[in-house]
């Protein structure tokens, strides 16, 4: 960790998830092992084989004023709510707008808007569409709105890499600060894709759990009985800041955002490469970028989505990159899979695990799959040791995108 480049720290956290409308309620529910998965009540549920999802615990329409909410896609609503929380949590820092950036993306974009606008257009014609239809459906809409809200003029970006989007956004934010483009970057991911077409499409790819009789037990990463992922929705956004800027204003620092590693499988458009090379390389590159050794890493928040094919490959990649000592959790067992939002909330969970030195247990892990040689947290949350520790958040996406973000205690 002896680099002379700009060090980046985390000074604010914001989230709205299936477990709670903010970071505190979500984190507390995770430590209690609660599930955010519940039956879907929309009328389209009869048309799909999956009858449950991780619906946001607090509806964004109950948080935002109606005139604001109606101009925003649901994914943008989540993002704006999480960004406001993160900004307040960081102490609403005084910063030159030219030195403030935003990197917030979504895996899918405003699919709810696309579908409802298409219906409206077909039924009533073009001139009944909201003039905000385009900014509602574009996946960079959240970044644009947050930049307007905060007056961020250093650049507003949206990286898109399916389920790796949130983590990649944080990686891009770290790079923005290191390269000198910004002192503060608001970064993370959002998603609102619990819609019949989206559920049907993931079901068509045979990736979703159909454990309809036990929704809360359906997301079971690393368990022998897992049968697919569970769709969730929400957003997780962090405030990244140069250490110098944060120290100068006396900000509370949760952790250092020490490094990021990227790789691509170049193998299959949806399935992971069977040897786990891509995940392994992303973790190794994150270590190198952060100036860490495998022995420094005390904890991994695994991507682990509960699909039959993915989890064991990731366990193997973690073993090969880091060894068997790191404590591994899989919080999608409780939140479901937030797609583009996953890397955002799971980075927050990784940061809080370091900050509070406790790792939530994996829910529904009754019977771990054979051949897993990493230390999975089962039953109760596990305490982390004192001293200087590192932790990694893994996020992998359709397309073969692999991102590992390394955080350290400060």
């Amino acid at each position, binding site marked *: 960790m002896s680099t002379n480049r700009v060090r980046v720290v985390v000074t604010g956290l914001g989230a709205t998830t299936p477990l709670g409308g903010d970071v505190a309620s979500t984190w507390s529910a995770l430590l209690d092992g609660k599930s955010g998965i519940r039956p879907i009540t929309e009328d389209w549920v009869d048309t799909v084989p999956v009858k449950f999802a991780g619906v946001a615990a607090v509806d964004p329409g109950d948080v935002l*004023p109606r*005139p*604001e909410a*109606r101009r925003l896609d649901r994914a943008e609503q989540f993002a704006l709510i999480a960004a406001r929380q993160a900004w307040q949590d960081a102490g609403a820092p005084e910063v030159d707008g030219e030195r403030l950036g935003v990197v917030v993306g979504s895996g899918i974009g405003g699919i709810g808007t696309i579908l409802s606008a298409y219906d409206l257009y077909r039924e009533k014609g073009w001139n*009944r569409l*909201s*003039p905000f239809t385009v900014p509602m459906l574009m996946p960079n809409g959240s970044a644009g709105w947050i930049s307007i809200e905060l007056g961020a003029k250093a650049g507003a970006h949206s990286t898109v890499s399916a389920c790796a989007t949130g983590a990649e956004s944080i990686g891009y934010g770290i790079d923005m600060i290191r390269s000198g483009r910004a002192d503060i970057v608001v970064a993370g991911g959002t998603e609102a894709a619990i819609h019949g077409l989206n559920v049907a499409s993931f079901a068509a790819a045979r990736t979703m759990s159909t454990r309809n009789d036990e929704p809360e037990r359906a997301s079971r990463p690393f368990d022998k009985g897992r049968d697919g992922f569970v769709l969730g929705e929400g957003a997780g956004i962090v405030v990244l800041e140069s250490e110098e800027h944060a120290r100068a204003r006396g900000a509370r620092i949760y952790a250092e955002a020490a490094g990021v590693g990227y790789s691509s499988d170049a193998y299959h458009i949806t399935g992971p490469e069977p040897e786990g090379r891509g995940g392994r390389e992303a973790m190794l590159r994150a270590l190198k970028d952060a100036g860490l050794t495998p022995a420094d890493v005390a904890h991994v928040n695994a991507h682990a989505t509960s699909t039959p094919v993915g989890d064991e490959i990731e366990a193997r990649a973690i073993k090969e990159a880091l060894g068997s000592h790191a404590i591994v959790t899989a919080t999608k067992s409780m939140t479901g899979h937030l797609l583009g939002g996953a890397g955002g909330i799971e980075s927050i969970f990784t940061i809080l695990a370091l900050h509070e030195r406790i790792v939530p247990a994996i829910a529904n892990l009754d019977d771990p799959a054979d051949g897993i040689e990493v230390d999975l947290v089962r039953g109760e949350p596990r305490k982390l040791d004192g001293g200087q520790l590192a932790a990694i958040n893994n996020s992998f996406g359709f397309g073969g995108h692999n991102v590992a973000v390394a955080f350290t205690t400060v």
Partner: protein
Amino acid sequence: MAVTEQEILAGLGKIINEITGIPATEVTPEKNFVDDLDIDSLSMVEIAVAAQDEFGVEIPDDQLKHLKTVKDVINFIQA
């Protein structure tokens, strides 16, 4: 069945409140959309679309730009 000015004003107040958050009581005939109510051009499009649905009167884009005040819209709908 002709709609009265009061009925149109009440309907517009409701629409403008829904779209902009401005209290319906502040939507009075003499108010200028830009200068008094701080309503931008895209919000005007939203208001026009909602008014078309509410009152069944098409407001073409080339007419919309001439409707500067609440009274202008009321007159257009009544005409």
